[in-house]
Structures are given as C-alpha cells and as structure tokens.
C-alpha cells in the first residue's frame, strides 16, 4: 500500500471527524453570511451534523483499526463512547436553543463552537498517541472555555470562563509535562508501542512521574478531587445549557480517554499484576465520592449542587476503572450511559425553572412543585431517586456494577467508602424530593416549558424508571465493547 492509499484508507476511518470539522466550518460560513438571525437554523443544522456523524460512527469497522500511522484508533470502545457523546451534545444543543433566545445572547457562533467541541471530544476518544491526545483535549477545551464565558454581559459567566481557562491552562501544562516525560523515558508517543515496551519490565521512576502528571491533566477534565476545584464555580457561572454540556459530554469523553490511556498501554492484562496507577485512581475515586457527597449537602444553588453531584458520580466511575478489569470497564460504560441520561434529565428540569423575572436556580424555588407541576415533579423525583441509587431505578444498577467489579478485585475499602458516600449523598437528593412534595408551594413556573425539553425530561425519566427492560441489551453491548480494550 503506498502512502496515498494509506491516507485515503485513513480518511474513511475518520469520516465522522471529517464531517464534524468540515460541517463546522460550513456552518460558520453560513452564520457569517446570514448573521445572528440564522442561529436557529445553524443550531438545527448542527444537530443534523451530529446525527450524520453518529451514523458515520456506526458505519465504522467492527475490529480495532489504526489510522494515520497508529495515532488514531477506531474500535468498538471508541464507537460506543462517541455515540454517547454525540447524543449528549445533541441533546444539550437542542435544549439550549430557546434558552439563548430568552437570555438574549443568541449568536451563531454558539452552535458552531459546540460542534467544534464535539470534534475535539471525538478526537480524544479515538486518540492512540500522546500527540493526538493532546490535540483533542486542547480543541475541546478551547471551545469550552469560550462557551463558558459565552454570555459575556454576565459577570458570573465571564468569571467562570476566566477561571476555567486559567486552571485549564495549568492542567494542560501538567498534561504536556507528563507526555514529555513519558516520551523522554521511552522514546515513543504511540500507545501501541508503549504497550509493547512498557509491560515486561514494569515502570521506571521517570515514567511513573510522567504518568502522574498525565493523570493529573486528565483528572482535571473529569473533575476528580483534588483537581475538581473549578467545577462548582464554572457550573454555576456558565449558561445553564453549557453547564449541562459540561456535566455530560466532556466528562464522558475524558473518562473514555482516561480508560484508554490506563488500560491499553499501562495495564499488564496477561500477567495480572496490580498496575502502578491503581493507587492514584483509588485515591481520586475515594476523595471524589466523599467530597461529592459531603459538599453537596451545603449547597442551595441547584447547578452548584449538580456540580458536586457530578464529582461524586465521577468518583464512582473511577471506582470501576480502579478495578482495571474488563468487568470494571463494562461497569464504567454502563455507568456513563446512565449518568448521561440522568444528567440530561435533571438539566432539562433546571431549564424549566423559569419565572417571569427570569431563570431561577435556588433549590427552595422547587417548593411545592408537586402541586404546581405534578408531572415535572414526578419526573424529577424519579431522577433524584435514580441519582441517589435507589432500586429498581437505573442509578442503582450503575453503582451496583462498578461496586461488584471493585469487590471482585479486592478493593473492599474503596467499595465500602463508595457505599457510605452513596448513603450520605442520598440525603441531598431526597431533600429535593422533600422540598417538592412536602413544602409550602412557591410561585409556579412559567408554562409551557418548551416541547423538546418536556420530551427529553419524559424520555429520560421513563428510561430510568424502566431500566430493567433495557438492562440486558445494554449489558450485552457494553460487554462486547469492553472486550475490545483487552
């Protein structure tokens, strides 16, 4: 095969990314020529673009295939996560359309930036090389920095963007330093080569340092404690649909990247020795679960509360990763799927908290929701019970699979901490239910809440409520997908 053939073969593999990048530029042109009036059109075209990209992902090869000299990988694992990510992005985009109009910052760059961010995430998910990894992370991050500060007339939004940018830059620095150490001690940036050179002798001290820095950079993206500090401030300050996006898609993409980096090159599956990185992941998981549970109790702003909630949930996902087995990875995938549904559902609710004077974000505003909007209250109750992990809702099974995986690997302390943290976190989820059902009603929200949002809310709560129906297909798929990494 000559080089041009190789490149054209590679292009067929990166078709989804090609669609996204070319489409984003086309949408940008459309926006430039038509102005802000075209925002809604651009948004729907972006959704369509994401859909096409999703179709293209599904057309990809069934076996693990490398492209561009091994720096880009297409495998079932990546495909599954990409679909999740695209769904998350598309839903957030749909939910944002009315919002940006109401809040008066309807500009065509908004959907374009979201598409670019998803291109970055797609790159992250498929990265098989430290360079492509960095490229994806940066593309995603830069788009998101801008999105966080998108409502530039709002002080809080600008502050959020600024904080996110500065701390993101620091984490990128850590990440790059880690990459350079790894390259310095192995002479390669490619994951496959790393996998072959590293396994036999274990890790040298230099490499361990490199790994720590790399992990720190990625932990920032999944907002694992103690690299989480930006999360509450940015979640609170950013426009709500962007917060929804933050808590759904980038978390999924970054977590997938973390899984790939740790499992593929740095885990000795055959020798079944305990990998060096496990201690770090265990510590991150524990801290995240505990802090997510405790700090959320004291919050009165629902977006801030969801920030801590997502920190806690990422802790649980890391718990599955800490197991480092196929079962653990399957748990991670199931967890991410259910987490996506729960997060999107909750943010659909938050986006419905509209009054004549504007959006409200205080938990107390939900008082008596059961009497003003009984269906919404019921859906939110299902979501909260699921987030709290109460059977037979989906959230329970999500936790169950990762806990089982951890216990099979002998991580008893971690599992017990997880269960206890889950008990503590149940408090603030149930508090919301209590406020909705037992407190004196506050002023009702404006209705009707947008049709798309109602649809999303209803669909997500139904999925969580009747998860048992979907459980077996989902388990089957994730099992196959997880196998592709081992």
């Amino acid at each position, binding site marked *: 095969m000559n080089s041009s053939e190789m490149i054209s073969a590679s292009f067929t593999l990166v078709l989804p990314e090609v669609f996204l990048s070319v489409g984003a530029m086309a949408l940008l042109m459309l926006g430039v020529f038509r102005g802000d009036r075209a925002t809604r059109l651009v948004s729907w075209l972006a959704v369509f673009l994401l859909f096409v990209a999703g179709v293209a992902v599904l057309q990809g090869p069934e076996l693990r295939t490398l492209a561009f000299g091994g720096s880009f990988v297409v495998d079932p694992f990546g495909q599954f996560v990409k679909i999740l990510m695209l769904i998350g992005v598309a839903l957030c985009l749909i939910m944002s359309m009315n919002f940006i109009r109401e809040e008066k910052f309807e500009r065509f760059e908004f959907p374009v930036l979201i598409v670019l961010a998803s291109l970055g995430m797609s790159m992250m998910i498929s990265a098989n090389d430290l360079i492509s990894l960095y490229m994806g992370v940066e593309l995603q991050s830069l788009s998101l920095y801008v999105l966080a500060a998108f409502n530039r007339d709002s002080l809080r939004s600008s502050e959020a963007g600024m904080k996110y940018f500065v701390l993101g830059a620091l984490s990128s620095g850590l990440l790059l330093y880690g990459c350079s150490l790894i390259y310095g001690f192995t002479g390669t940036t490619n994951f496959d080569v790393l996998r072959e050179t590293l396994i036999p002798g274990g890790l040298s001290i230099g490499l361990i340092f490199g790994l720590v820095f790399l992990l720190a950079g990625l932990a920032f993206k999944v907002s694992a404690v103690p690299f989480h500090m930006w999360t509450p401030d940015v979640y609170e300050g950013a426009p709500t649909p962007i917060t929804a996006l933050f808590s759904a898609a980038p978390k999924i993409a970054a977590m997938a990247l973390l899984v790939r980096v740790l499992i593929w090159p740095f885990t000795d599956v055959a020798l079944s020795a305990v990998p060096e990185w496990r201690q770090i992941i265990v510590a991150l998981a524990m801290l995240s679960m505990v802090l997510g549970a405790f700090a959320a109790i004291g919050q009165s702003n629902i977006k801030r509360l969801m920030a801590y909630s997502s920190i806690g949930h990422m802790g649980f996902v890391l718990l599955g990763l800490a197991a480092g087995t196929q079962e653990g990875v399957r748990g991670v995938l199931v967890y991410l799927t259910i987490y996506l549904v729960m997060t999107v559902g909750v943010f659909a609710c938050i986006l419905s908290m509209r009054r004549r004077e504007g959006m409200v974000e205080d938990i107390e505003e939900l008082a008596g929701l059961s009497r003003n909007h009984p269906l919404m209250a019921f859906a939110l109750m299902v979501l909260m019970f699921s987030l709290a992990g109460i059977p037979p809702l989906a959230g329970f099974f999500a936790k169950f699979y990762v806990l089982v995986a951890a216990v099979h690997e002998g991580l008893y302390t971690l599992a017990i901490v997880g269960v206890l943290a889950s008990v*503590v976190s149940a408090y603030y989820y149930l508090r919301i239910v209590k406020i909705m059902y037992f407190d004196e009603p506050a002023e009702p929200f404006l209705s009707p809440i947008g049709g798309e949002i109602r649809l999303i809310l209803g669909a997500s709560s139904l999925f969580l409520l009747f998860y048992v129906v979907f459980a077996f297909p989902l388990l089957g798929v994730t099992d196959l997908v997880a196998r592709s990494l081992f």
Partner: protein
Amino acid sequence: MLYKLIVLLPVIGALIGGLLGRWIGHRGAEIITSSLLVLSAILSCVAFYQVAIAGQGPEEAITFFRWFDVGAFEADWALRIDTLTVVMMVVVTGVSSLVHIYSIGYMSHDPHRARFFSYLSLFTFAMLALVTADNLLQMFFGWEGVGLASYLLIGFWYKKPSANAAAIKAFLVNRVGDFGFAIGIMAIFFVFDAVDFDTIFAKAPELAGTNFLFLGQSVDVLTTICLLLFVGAMGKSAQIFLHTWLPDAMEGPTPVSALIHAATMVTAGVFLVCRMSYLFEYAPDALYVVTLVGAVTAFFAASVALVQNDIKRVIAYSTCSQLGYMFFAAGLGAYDAAMFHLFTHAFFKALLFLCAGSVIHGMSDEQDMRNMGGLFKYLPWTGMLMIIGTLSITGVGIPHTLIGFSGFVSKDAIIEGAYAVGTPIGGFAFWIGLIAAAMTAFYSWRLIFMTFFGRPRAPIDIMSHVHESPATMMIPLLVLAFGAIFAGIALQSLFIGSASEGFWGDALLVLGSTGHEVVEAAEQGAHDLPNWVVLGPFVVMLLGLTWAAYWYLKRPDIPERIAANRGLLYLFLLNKWYFDEIYDFLFVRPAKRLGRFLWKRGDGWLIDGFGPDGVAALVLGTTRRAIKLQTGYIYHYAFAMLIGVAAAATYLYVKAVGAL
C-alpha cells in the same frame, strides 16, 4: 355441638358488637350480645345437668383443630368437659349474662356502649376458653385473654387518668404472675414432653419425688412446677403480694367489677389449682404454701377491709379475703369445698357488687360511704337485696344443720374442714379463718350500716335525686339473690356432701384424708367434731355483727374518733399494710430510675449521640469544612491541584524506591 356453642356464642357476640357496632347501633349491640349470652347460659345449665348430674358427659375431649404440632410439642384447640368445667361454665355464663342485662341499665348513659358489651362478651369467651381448656397452652390463651379483657374494661373510661393507671397496674402485676405460670408450663413440657392434661395427669405419679435442675439447684420436680403454677394463680386471684391491682381495678365500671373482679376471672387461680389437683396432690410442700398464702390473704384482706371508706374497695378486699378461703381449702386438699365456695361466692359477691353499683347509680356516682347513710328508705329494694348478700357472705345459718344462706354452708364447711384435717397448718388455717370470719361480719355490716342506716350525710341536692334503679338492673339482682340464699342448701350434697363422689367423678384427685370427709362424717354422727368448732364461725359472726351495730348504729362517734386520732394500727390498715408504698419504693421507683437512665444516658446520650445524631453532626461538620475549601480564588484551586500532583508523585516514588 352443645359445648362448642357455649364457648363460641360469646365470641360471636363480641365480634358483632365490636366490629359492627357502628351499623347496628348501641341498642343492637346490647341486645345481640346479651341474648347470645343468655342462650349460652341456658345451654350451660343443660350441660351442667348432662355432665354433673346425669353423668352423660363426653368421653373424650372435643377437638376443634390442631393448633401446634412441632416435634414433641403438640396442642389442640379442644374442650375438656368434666364436672369442674361445667361448674365453671355455669358460673361464668350465668353471672356474665346477668351482668350483661344489668349493664343495659347501668351503662345507659355511656356513649360507647357497643364497645363495652363487645369487651364483656370477649371476656366471657376468654374465660370459657380458660375453663374448657384441654391443655395448658389453650388455658394460657384464655388466661391471657381474660387479662386483656380485664385491662380493656378497667380502662374502659380511658379519659380518666386513674382508670388508665389502674388498667396498666392490673396488667403489669398480672404479668408477674403470668411469668410464673409460663415458666411452669415450660417446666411441664420439659418434664412431661406434653402440655395436654391427660398425659400430664397420667405421668404425674411416676414423677413424684424425683428431682431436676432448676436455676442451678436440684429441686423436686412437682413441687417446683406446682409452685410456679401457683405464682400464676396468685397473680390472677390477687393473693397477698400480688393483690395490689385488685382494689385499683375498681376504677372500671361496676358491672365489670362484679363479673371479672368478683365472680369469675379472679377465681381462675382457684380453678387452676383444682384443675391441677393431679399434680398438687403429689407435691405436698406446694400445697403447704398454697394453704399458707391463702390463709394469710384471708386475714390480711379482711383486716384492710375493716377501715376502707370506698364502698367498692371494701367489697374488693372482701373478694380478696374470700379467695384466700378458697385457696387454703384447696391447699388442705378440700378442692371440692374450694369449688363450692367459689360457686356460692359468685352469687353473693356479684350480688353485693351489683347492689353497690345500684347505690352508686342512685347516688349520682358517689362511692365514699362517709357521704352516704340513711339510704334504706330511698332504695328499699337495693337495700333488701344487699342485706341478703351480706347475710350470705357473713355466713348466717343454723349451726349443726345445713340450713342457712349459701355463704354459711360453703364457708363453714371450709373452716370446720380446716380444723378436722388435724395438722398444724390445718389448725393455723382454722384459726385464721375464724378471725377472718369475724372481721368479715364486721366490715360487711359496717358497709350496710354506713350506707343504708344512720343519718344521711350526703348533700341535699344529691339526696333529692336518689332513685331506685330500673328493672333491667333489678331483675339480675333478684336472680343472684335467689342463688345467694338457696344455692348452698340446694347443692351442698352434690358438691361436698354424700353425692359428691359421683358428682365430681375424675375431675379432682384427693390422696390423703381431707377435712370435708371428716366434716361429712361428723354431720352423720360417726365422728366427734367438738361443739365449739361447729359453733365457732356462727359465734364470731354474731360478734362482728354486734360490734358493727354498736359502733355504727349506736355510737357512730367512736369510729369517727378513731379515724380522727389516726392511730398507728388504723393508719396501717387504712394504707393497706403499706404494700403500695413498699412496692413503689422497691420496684416502681428503681425501675423508673433505670428506665430514665437508659433513656437519657443509654439511648439519648450513647446511642443517639454516637449513632444518628453524632453521624448527622459529623456530616454537617464535614460539609461545612468541605464548603470552606471552595474559596473562589484561582490560586487556591491551582494550589490544590499541585498538592494533589505532588502527593501522588511522592507516594508512588516512595513506593517504587521501597520496592527496589
């Protein structure tokens, strides 16, 4: 079928009255429960005739269904029909039906009559279950059932704090006795491998004199078991030490006192001892204790009754004292005399209580005798009937013959029998019985004189309202009065006289020579019972009567002066030998202190403090600290990240170097 109906009719009434009371109304509940009980009483009389007189009782127990079948532990729901059972049946259903009818009048102003009648019928059912039991487990069911009904009825006026306290007290004190009873049943199962009477009675002779380990001591099997059962009997029959609940139980409506706390439930203990005569006869030491406790109770309760001022409390202590008579009779082996006294006592004591109820009803709920007096001309019928009851309880009759009121026939038989037994304990019981008889006469006549004679002490407005009770209340009184007069003469030969052997059949077992046989012989002239023994009870009765008449009719200033002086003996008796105070000091207050300690320190401080409250406080504290971490300053955030990196790198470095 007959026997099943007797037992089941009351429970049907209770269910209808209790569950459907709202729909059928008070009148409906009254009529249904009362008529079902009257029917049950009539059937009981038929059963009594069939079993005890015609001797055509069922050969075997009548089984409803199997209740327990676990390993060797088997128990049926079954009816054991013998003379002992049918005697109790007649007493229970008879008095109960009369009390039902009486209550229609007595409770006519109460807004919860349906509930009241339901409870009464429920009680009757439980009592019947107790007396018809074929095994100890079923008996225990009835035993607890009557305890429950008693609790519900004492506390019937639940808005009255004193009634609630009395109900709880009755329940708790009975619990002490029931505990003994329960352990006794367990011991029986442990020893006999069975709880049904036939097996136990058949095996008892083999086990006489054998020992087993109990609380680490080697003790006589049957004595231990019998004493444990007797503890249960003491609780239910309000014998000394476990008697404190009975006077307080008078807080309940008066018909309840008549039915439960005079005629039926409190006699369950006597019934138990008689039913278990097959065991007690092989445990002479236990019988000794029964006699002693019975005699002491007879004396103690009579002495307290001397000075009480509440009309119902006097009769309550009188009940206690009469139960003492029954127990010492049973303890001396005269089970038949005990049962006979139980039978006659049911009539005259229920009569006395219901008359007292009539007085209270007429006096607008006044119970203190010091506020009565001179009521005879206002309540002539009640007065007459109550005097009949008093003549019966004090034992008026012609010595050396069998002609007299019921109480005369049965009580004198017990007292004379005690003398005739000839043992030291028999002699002791005899003298106690004699003294108690004198006191009985005194307090009973004192009650009559203070209530019906002398000058009226009630305020004018109450006296102007005094009225005779309606017919529904008087007719039951007449029936009971009839029994109080004639039951003794009519049934003496059956219960304790010449025909008694055929009458009782196998229901009772008597091994040694017993008093009543001696008495019987004496009456037929074969034996010499000293003349003074036969005359004794009569003479002391006259003594008590005269004394009471002198003090309360002729010189009412004397008792008033004694009461005003508050002498030591007077206070001792007025305060019921200070039993309540001693128990309060010994048990109630330490228990409360312990409870308080466990509540405040154990639960509140230790469990809540380190459990729920402590954890909650810990969570809140942690939350506050976790929130404080979030300062909002970028350099703090960056610092946290760098610390994280440094910590992880250091940890892995140390680990890697250590591994090298």
